[in-house]
């Protein structure tokens, strides 16, 4: 498993090195997301209204942190699901499934480097803006947010593995689950409070790790004794979700794997 994670890490590294456009896009994406929402917001309304409704001091800073969370979530699910899909396109999926390592472990190992790498790139990309708005204290908060994102990536990895395994049994060789990422972000209230969503979606949000990462990011930006206690509750929920979703992934993928091996993959 460690060997696969290491191989994936180097594959990621060289992919970035050889696709500089992708790296530039990764660095620019948080800014583009913020520019899009804030650009529209500034023209139609005012940031004060947004700050009051969201309960944040600095909307730009909050949105940058939120977009880092969003981008990291997008990348982790896309990478793990993309691993299955990419190997299916290459015709190597059959061989990979027949290797001695168990499929759930393989998929987790494939996603691990991205779970660390992607937040690191996006966090670094927003550092100049955070330093400009908040100075060194903002930078310390950003590092804290980075570690919370890493913790949030653990349950998300479990969800990604379940999603990736679905691609093993669906007879369509395209990414039919890429709407999962925006759905998770939609119910997590990345740029808005979850309270504005319909009640059913608010209930779904309670089971989505990204929501807690966003909550934690908000709490970090207003760190005090009270919010410190709330922060620990959020971290506890994330840890619990990490165990639950990864356990579910192991059980679910085991069955899907057996089915895929019995019937073969296209």
């Amino acid at each position, binding site marked *: 498993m460690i060997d696969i994670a290491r191989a994936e890490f180097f594959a990621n590294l060289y992919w970035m090195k050889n696709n500089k456009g992708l790296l530039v896009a990764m660095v620019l994406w948080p800014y583009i997301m913020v520019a899009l929402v804030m650009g529209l*917001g500034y023209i139609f309304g005012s940031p004060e209204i*947004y700050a009051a409704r969201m309960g944040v001091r600095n909307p730009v800073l909050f949105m940058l942190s939120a977009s880092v969370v969003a981008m990291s979530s997008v990348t982790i699910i896309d990478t793990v699901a993309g691993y299955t899909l990419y190997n299916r396109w290459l015709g190597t999926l059959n061989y990979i499934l027949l290797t001695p390592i168990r499929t759930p472990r393989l998929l987790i190992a494939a996603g691990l480097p991205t779970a660390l790498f992607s937040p690191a790139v996006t966090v670094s990309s927003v550092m100049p803006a955070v330093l400009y708005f908040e100075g060194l204290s903002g930078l310390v908060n950003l590092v804290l947010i980075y570690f919370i994102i890493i913790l949030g990536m653990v349950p998300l990895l479990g969800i990604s593995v379940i999603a990736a395994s679905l691609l093993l049994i669906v007879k369509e060789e395209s990414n*039919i689950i890429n709407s999962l990422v925006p759905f998770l972000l939609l119910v997590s209230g990345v740029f808005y409070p979850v309270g504005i969503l319909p009640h059913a979606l608010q209930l779904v949000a309670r089971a989505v790790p990204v929501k807690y990462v966003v909550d934690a990011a908000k709490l970090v930006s207003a760190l005090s004794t009270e919010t410190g206690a709330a922060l620990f509750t959020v971290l506890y929920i994330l840890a619990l979700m990490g165990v639950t979703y990864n356990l579910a992934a192991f059980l679910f993928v085991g069955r899907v794997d057996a089915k895929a091996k019995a019937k073969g993959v296209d």
Partner: protein
Amino acid sequence: MSRLRPIVYLHLLRTWRYKYSFLNSTLNITFWIAIFILGALLFVPKEELPTTGPYVFWGVTLWNIISTSVWYIAGWSIWFFVSLGLVEDHMLHNTRTLHVLAGRLVTIATQIAMVTPLMYLLVSYATGTRFPLATKPLFLLYGLGTATVMAVSYSLILSAISLRTGVPGPLIDITNFLIFIVGGVAVPVSMLPGPLKTVAIAVPYSHAAEVMRYGAAGLEPYLPLGTEIILSGVIAAAMAAVAYVLFSYLENKYIRIHGVRGVGRM
């Protein structure tokens, strides 16, 4: 007509063959737009939400036409048609690549027909009002028509370029977002801050968007209405002509001598 029929059939069949992917794509677009719109509308004072609704809805619809055209024509040709070597195959069967790619309009129209009602529901929910779709339908249709011709032509130009050289995908996405914000697509040109008005006027889509907004909500365009109608028609025709001439040159002169992406030169 006899050549058009198999192309339309091809794209209809392909859309049916990839039905899960197609549905997933519809949800994917809807969720992403929802994330940004719900965030942006939090900047708007509650009492102004009903008047903002039509601008946001038609801005998003126009952006969807631009973005879907780019990905379904240019993206499809770069990552599928060219990569699989289908250009040469179609040429040998006396079928023009231009016609096959323009036929993607079938898929684009189906996708837009599915996303647009969802967008209306979303914007209605977010603004808390059921706004009328059009006050002057003919102007709205004219704006939509010219915008579609511009979007398809732009996509065909990108496809034509991809036959000769690489086109960086992430940068296409970034350009789409920039056009949305500063190109007079998302917001009326008159509402943009000073220098951005000039930028918006230089973006072809802004003229079609201004006519659309006049037809949808009766908002007077930044330039006189007659000028906007002439400009959007002339620009749409010019872009279609450039796409046609560029494709004809590449198909008849460049590819026949050098091969796709100049492989024949090696």
